[in-house]
């Protein structure tokens, strides 16, 4: 196992520079996690599209039933348990498909029961409320069913890259800890086997990594640092570079006096316009400075490379924005330091 790891790393050090394809081939499953409101879904979409544009078939797995992901790719209908293609590949660019599906615990449970010779009683179990009792009696069982299904998709090499849009921060730790928790609680049986296989998946950096997302603001930075250490300590999962989302693209020259700038361009400013331009410029400079401070603070607190994504002044997220962000993420990946053998 160790030999294989160093071999992979050696190859990626030697021949493959960290281009998007190389980056996305380091591991089959990337779990995207972060505090609510930091743009997890946006990053999942951009990441998947980047991988697909690099020729890797990508499957996004959504577990909270949110509609944002489908809409980001211009799809009106919500996602379903059946896989759909969100962004078809092909064409001259050689892009691969971005596909997506939901994976709810209930669906995963029914599938699990079917696969384990309990097809006939699965309906009764659901209907009688027995499932409620069991899932209460064995906390984490719902999470383990979802992760177990992800593991099955990984094992079958169902896509070149599987992007799992994880629950929001605190829940993400609980979600990923479910497997180790179950190993303590359940000593025998197929659920234990399932939990063990999920632990194996989570602890193998060649199969699975967590990509954390944050904003360059004080609270999100604090929380992402805390989550990162919890994930490493308690779950033992490897961390991919951390994505800092929503950074104002840096504009230089914002400190120049509008009146002076106007005279240099031989332009005329209307009454009060200089003040408005100055106020807007000051606001941006102030925000840019705060962001730079938080980015530096994150770098100090968390020894992970950072991938920066720009704030898009269009507040909506559609296919065009996803492509812009995918390109930006690709640029950020190319700027990453050379991978170091673990």
């Amino acid at each position, binding site marked *: 196992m160790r030999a294989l790891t160093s071999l992979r790393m050696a190859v990626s050090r030697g021949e493959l520079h960290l281009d998007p394809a190389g980056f996305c081939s380091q591991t089959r499953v990337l779990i995207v996690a972060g505090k609510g409101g930091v743009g997890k879904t946006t990053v999942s979409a951009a990441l998947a599209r980047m991988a697909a544009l690099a020729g890797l078939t990508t499957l996004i797995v959504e577990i909270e*039933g949110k509609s944002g992901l489908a809409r980001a790719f211009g799809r009106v209908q919500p996602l379903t348990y059946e896989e759909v293609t969100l962004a078809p590949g092909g064409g001259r660019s050689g892009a691969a498909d971005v596909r997506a599906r939901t994976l709810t615990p209930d669906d995963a449970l029914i599938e699990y029961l079917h696969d384990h010779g309990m097809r006939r009683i699965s309906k009764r179990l659901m209907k009688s409320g027995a499932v409620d009792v069991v899932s*209460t009696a064995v906390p984490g069982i719902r999470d383990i069913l979802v992760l177990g299904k992800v593991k099955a998709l990984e094992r079958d090499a169902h896509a070149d890259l599987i992007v799992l849009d994880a629950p929001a*921060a605190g829940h993400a730790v609980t979600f990923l800890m479910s497997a180790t928790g179950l190993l303590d609680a*359940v000593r025998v*049986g197929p659920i234990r086997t399932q939990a063990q296989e999920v632990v194996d998946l989570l602890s193998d950096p060649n199969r699975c990594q967590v990509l954390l997302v944050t904003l360059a603001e004080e609270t999100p930075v*604090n929380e992402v640092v805390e989550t990162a250490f919890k994930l490493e300590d308690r779950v033992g999962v490897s961390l991919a570079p951390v994505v800092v989302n929503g950074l104002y693209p840096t504009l230089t*020259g914002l400190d120049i006096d509008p009146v*002076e700038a106007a005279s240099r361009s031989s*332009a005329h400013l209307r009454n009060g316009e200089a003040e408005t331009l100055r106020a807007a410029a000051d606001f941006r400079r102030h925000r840019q400075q705060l962001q730079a401070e938080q980015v530096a603070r994150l770098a100090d607190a968390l020894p992970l490379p950072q991938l920066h994504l720009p704030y898009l002044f269009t507040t909506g997220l559609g296919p065009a924005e996803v492509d812009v962000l995918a390109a930006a993420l690709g640029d950020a990946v190319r700027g990453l330091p050379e991978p170091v053998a673990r």
Partner: protein
Amino acid sequence: MRELPDQGVVICCGSGGVGKTTVAAALALEGARRGRRACVVTIDPAKRLADALGLAELTNTPGKIEGDWSGELWALMLDTKTTFDNLVVRYAGGEEQARRILANGLYRNISGALSGTQEYMAMEKLYELHDEDRFDLVVVDTPPTRNALDFLDAPRRLTRLLDNRIFRLLVMPTRAYLKAVSAATQAFLRTVAKVVGAEVVGDAVAFFQAFEGMEQGFRERAQHVNDLLADPATVFVLVASPRADTVEEALFFADKLHEAGIDVDALVVNRLHPRFGDTNGAERERADTLAGSDLGTLYANLADFREVSAREESHFAELAAKVAPAPVGRVPFLSDDVHDLDGLTAVGSHLF
């Protein structure tokens, strides 16, 4: 939002990361300023705000915050497990029963890790504080949930479990039922044991048996909590940020509350960009014409903010229309994270 009541119970809800905790604390502070005895219950505050509120650790009993207001300001950071433990002790038939439950492996799982327990205990704590009559105003922020309305459903989760037919069969004490029990229950238990292992089943049976006699108390308590949530006097404040995705969630949230027979009593839209005047498209044109010059950069920047502001305003209008005639509050992007009483005062100054 001056018309927002400063007495009773206020629940701040909305999706994660929109600033519920900050708004909840600002509302409690405003209550204290108006001479009320106000208490804010927070679930998982950011550390610096927690420190400012004297919430260095989980306390589970409110701590008083001193300041120059005529009323009182108290704060509490919810300790889910202790709250649940207290509930068990309250309804147990005696020390022995409480001890057996608290020591049970399944109970420890439920009280510590069960999704929904945190929501349940937040509402339980809210009810307890309201019931004690120590405070005029109790403000609670809801946990970030996987599903928007988990906190409304939370108190019912345990009673639903207690009502479960199989569970009821398990705890039936008298011998007369024993025969009827065995056929259905044994089959079920065998299936469960096959999947998760016999120990889990043993723990579960022990838990259900230990719980015997307590379900009525729990059920009544959950009913009280539900009644409080459904009480028209209970105020629901929907907190949102003006981004497309969170607005979408807030609209969904408002619909779900409405379906549950609950109206949004106030809306707070947090982190609005400053406006710098209305856009008319001219600034973008000038930015393009002047591209490459310093003035072009300044216009491009102004155009960025005016465009984003215009979209935020349309999101805002959509939300405000959704919850009309509820009052709406706007909180702009503040230059710093809110992490002390001054920050809360600043938020409050935009709301009241």
